[in-house]
């Protein structure tokens, strides 16, 4: 479990986060949604130990460093190395034994055979969607207790989104998964709980993800983006 207690952060004179309190439990997929500039990136930076809050604290029931932040876009991987090298590397980095990594690869590869086919390919030779699948896969099998995915579905076709969604649903039983996304369709289909933030304030939270679009409108979170 991760408990965020009244976190506040000011950057360059602007209050980015104001007394945010949240709770994340293992076995669930959470989404943090809000318009651009709401403070989502600052929040995930603090959650993933890349930023220190000005006030408040985060209580981790397990190792506070064991959080995997997957950045948006085509980053997060060593392009000149194979998929297998990357899996091994990031797993080892988290303190996983060789046996654990091999078991994770085996069990996941059986459920998602398309990973198996690209294990020995260099990342640079993969398509954008495949890179995203691989990066997500690595974040899920590297032994982290919590995985934060920033805009994981951005730029992906429907088929790839479904694959990633299935991966997340499969992995959520043993970890906390947090999504930062503007893709409401994606959120609706795989999220268990949604936090809405605006101007650094937590404005609403719900486990009724079916009404996410309506909630977003009702909460007046729409900027220029059509929902």
């Amino acid at each position, binding site marked *: 479990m991760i408990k965020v207690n009244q976190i506040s*952060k000011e950057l360059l004179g602007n209050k980015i986060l104001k007394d945010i309190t949240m709770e994340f439990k293992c076995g669930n997929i959470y989404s943090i949604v809000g318009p651009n500039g709401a403070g989502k990136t600052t929040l995930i930076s603090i959650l993933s*130990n890349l*930023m220190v809050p000005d006030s408040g604290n985060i209580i981790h029931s397990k190792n506070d460093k064991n959080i995997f932040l997957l950045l948006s876009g085509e980053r997060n991987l060593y*392009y000149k190395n194979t998929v297998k090298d990357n899996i091994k*590397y990031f797993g080892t980095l*988290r303190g996983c034994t060789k046996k654990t990594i091999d078991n994770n690869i085996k069990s996941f590869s059986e459920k998602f055979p398309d990973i198996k086919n690209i294990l020995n390919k260099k990342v640079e030779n993969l398509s954008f969607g495949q890179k995203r699948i691989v990066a997500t896969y690595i974040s899920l099998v590297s032994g982290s207790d919590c995985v934060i995915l920033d805009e994981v579905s951005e730029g992906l076709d429907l088929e790839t989104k479904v694959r990633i969604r299935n991966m997340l649903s499969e992995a959520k039983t043993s970890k906390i998964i947090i999504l930062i996304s503007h893709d409401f369709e994606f959120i609706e289909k795989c999220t268990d709980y949604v936090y809405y933030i605006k101007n650094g304030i937590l404005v609403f939270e719900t486990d009724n993800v079916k009404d996410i679009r309506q909630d977003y409108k009702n909460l007046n979170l729409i900027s220029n983006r059509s929902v």
Partner: protein
Amino acid sequence: MMTLRIIFEELRINVLETLSYKFGIISDLFVYGGLQIFLFFSNTGSSLSNSYVYNNSKELLLLGYITWILSCACISNIGGEIKREMMIGTFYQKINAFIPIHLLYIGKLLASLTMQMITIIGVYAISVILFNVKLHLNIYIILLIFLCMIGMYGVGLIIGGFAVYYKQINSIVFIIQMLLLFVSDVLTKKQNLGYVFKIIPLTYCNDLIRKVLSSSYVGLYDVIVYILICSFNFFVGIVFLNFMIKQAKKRGNLLQF
């Protein structure tokens, strides 16, 4: 045991990655080989013969030159790599790694030194084939160079600390590498070297390895001072990098690239 495994994995992935950049290896060979040919033809370092009472000044120069190449690897592959890894997003995984980042980067250091051996073999081949200059290495020289690498790794961590906070440091890395060539007694031995330059491990190393090569007297005091200088740089590097990471976390610019 896990620490060693992680360091080895860092070494492995970096060696594999560098091997993929074949042009990088070839360009290193051209740059360092070309500079060496220029230095040898222009008779740079001829005064080293007088300073160390050793008739082969080119051998003394070559020894310092190779140590400089290795030192450059420590600086660019630690300081410069931190910036690159922030861009590709792998640095953030390293901050949350099972072992501290300064230990993890030992793997990167070993990888860059291993890969730089290809350049050094090339440079040595040029020395032997074009100038008939052979190196007479011994275990003391190798040990002294090893210590220098530990100290220069610390310098690399300091530069890495700047990269974490200020991001754009490529030109600074280049300037420091060039500066080292001229201020750390690689090319000549300066009598009135400033105090600041004497605490650079490479400066002290160049003096000691040339003394060993020329069979000059190396006092215990010199060795102790050298070990202290290398240790100082190493520990300052660790403290500084971790301090800068902390500052970047406070300032909130660690993820901004």
